[in-house]
């Protein structure tokens, strides 16, 4: 089996120049990531952290 690394170019079927390309898939992924971040932060801060009994208050 051919073990030449880096041959993704061989699978190119169309060339997309700067103006041909809008990273809409990226936008979808990063928005999902942002939603996860916000959810996890709220859970960690308000449930895991503030929800614990003994906390340093002074």
């Amino acid at each position, binding site marked *: 089996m051919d*073990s*030449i690394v*880096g041959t993704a*170019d061989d699978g190119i*079927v169309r060339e997309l120049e700067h103006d041909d390309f809008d990273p809409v*898939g*990226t936008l979808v992924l990063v928005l999902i990531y942002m939603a996860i971040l916000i959810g996890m932060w709220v859970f*960690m801060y308000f449930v895991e952290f503030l929800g614990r009994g003994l906390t*340093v208050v002074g």
Partner: protein
Amino acid sequence: MATASGGGEFVDKFPDEAAIVKASFLIAFVSLGIGAFFGLIQALHRTNVLRVIDSADYYTVLTGHGVLLAIVFTIFFLCGVFHWAVARSLDRPAENALFSWAWVGLMTTGTILATVAILGGFVPNLGMSADVLFTFYAPLQAHPIFYIGLAMFIVGTWLAGADWFLSYRAWRQNHEDERIPLQTFMVLTTMIMWYVSTLGVAVSVVFFLIPWSLGLIESVNPLLTRTLFWYFGHPIVYFWLMPAYLLWYTVLPKLAGGRLFSDPLARVVFVLFLLLSTPVGIHHQYLDPGIAEGFKFIAMTNTMFLLLPSLLTAFTVVASVEHGARQRGGEGYLRWLGALPWRDPAFTGMALAGAMFAAGGFSGMINAGMNINYLIHNTLWVPGHFHLTVGTAVALTMMAGSYWLVPQVTGTKLYSRPIGLLQVIMWFIGMVFMSNAMHRAGLAGIPRRTAEPQYQNFDFLTPIGSIFELRVQIALGGTLLFLSVVLFLFNILLTSLGEESDRPVDSHLPEPLSGPEGSPRVLDNLAMWTGIAAVLVVLAYTLPLAGIIQNGGGLFGGGLPVPATVSAGFDLVATTVTSAFNTLWGVVA
């Protein structure tokens, strides 16, 4: 569009530089192997699955694991990648091959000294050990050659940086008005950040720890040396990350079949790292006495803004990968992911590393939170975090990148793509188990850096599952990670012993979609950015350090008074900084 590598590989064009890269990689990979083996011992020991050493020796193993992986492996690999990147992007050999070998030699000698000191900890009655862990906090003390070895290693890296700056200076003489080629820009900004940041640990090691370990001074101020360590200890994570980012920005798009989405944004990101990496170290000391809350808050805000370059990287890199997917025929909002070259281990390894970094970034955001730090400080959550970041985003990218880089410096094809693919997937799965379990264990309060976290007076509690299954996952994950390293080393070894090939690898790198011409020239003004970085460091550290020295027992701790002249010097700097602050505040408010 497929192109032949034509004109020969890197090893044909730059044989001397290829030799330096090979030497750097060799030391890096040997350290990786030993460090990974130590990691396996730890994973099985602390979970009580298999104990083959004394628990006291666990800390010797742990020191070896930290130093060999987080210092020797990562930084030697960085040196190999950077040496390749500078020669390639400037299209010129290094200024002086002997000088290059000198820094390789100095770093190697330092490594050997430090490693001998560490391994001496296994030999009873030898009187030489360094059971002080990667952070070597005083008053725990190592044998002097541990500190001397580390100092030599750091000086070696400074010389490596000089090597690359000299190449840049020579190139600049023939290219007066051009923008700095992107890869060299990344190397230079990373090295400036490194020079700024290693200052702290160099002062600590040279002026305090070496003389103290030699018996020339009686004591050191533990909070001072600890603070000087963390001055350096946070930026080192960017010294790990920035070579990985260099690969993600300049190589991963090509591996995906695409082009870098934006050169200017890559430059902005690296400038932000240069500015913000160092004035944040106090976030590793949120729970330290002797440092006022205000300084901790400043470190926190700086740290939170330091998230920005990484968040920007996420967008630019994913967009570049998406570009490749769509050039390969990908469609839809998420279906395009399937059009990516998942059979290529270099691509898949880096993609998995990037995905895992997204998770590691989150646990880092928690670590950065000043008061939520109480929840996880010094628990197993922290290693859970950094095995995702340095352990995967960096280490897995370095391994995956090797599948593409090593053939360029050996002229031989990768021995086996399927084994490479298996290796990167195994790493990812192993880390999912191990790191996830470490995070959950940390929330239960299980401490890090502990040989036997099984106690008499109390039990750890976890809301979901059990402590037992957390231990099993850590042991299982650690085992998969070790096997993954074995596969990697095997593959690379056989690659380097293989037959020379006409076309060992597709090493052509395409132009970015958006080139540097669209970005402000000021981005390339390295002197200016260096100056601003220095100012930010002075603002973040002068007052806390002054407080630690003046109120905390002096330069040397132990109740020894601060020499009068040093105290006066600090008073002057502290007064200047405070009045500058007040003036600025008055103007702004």
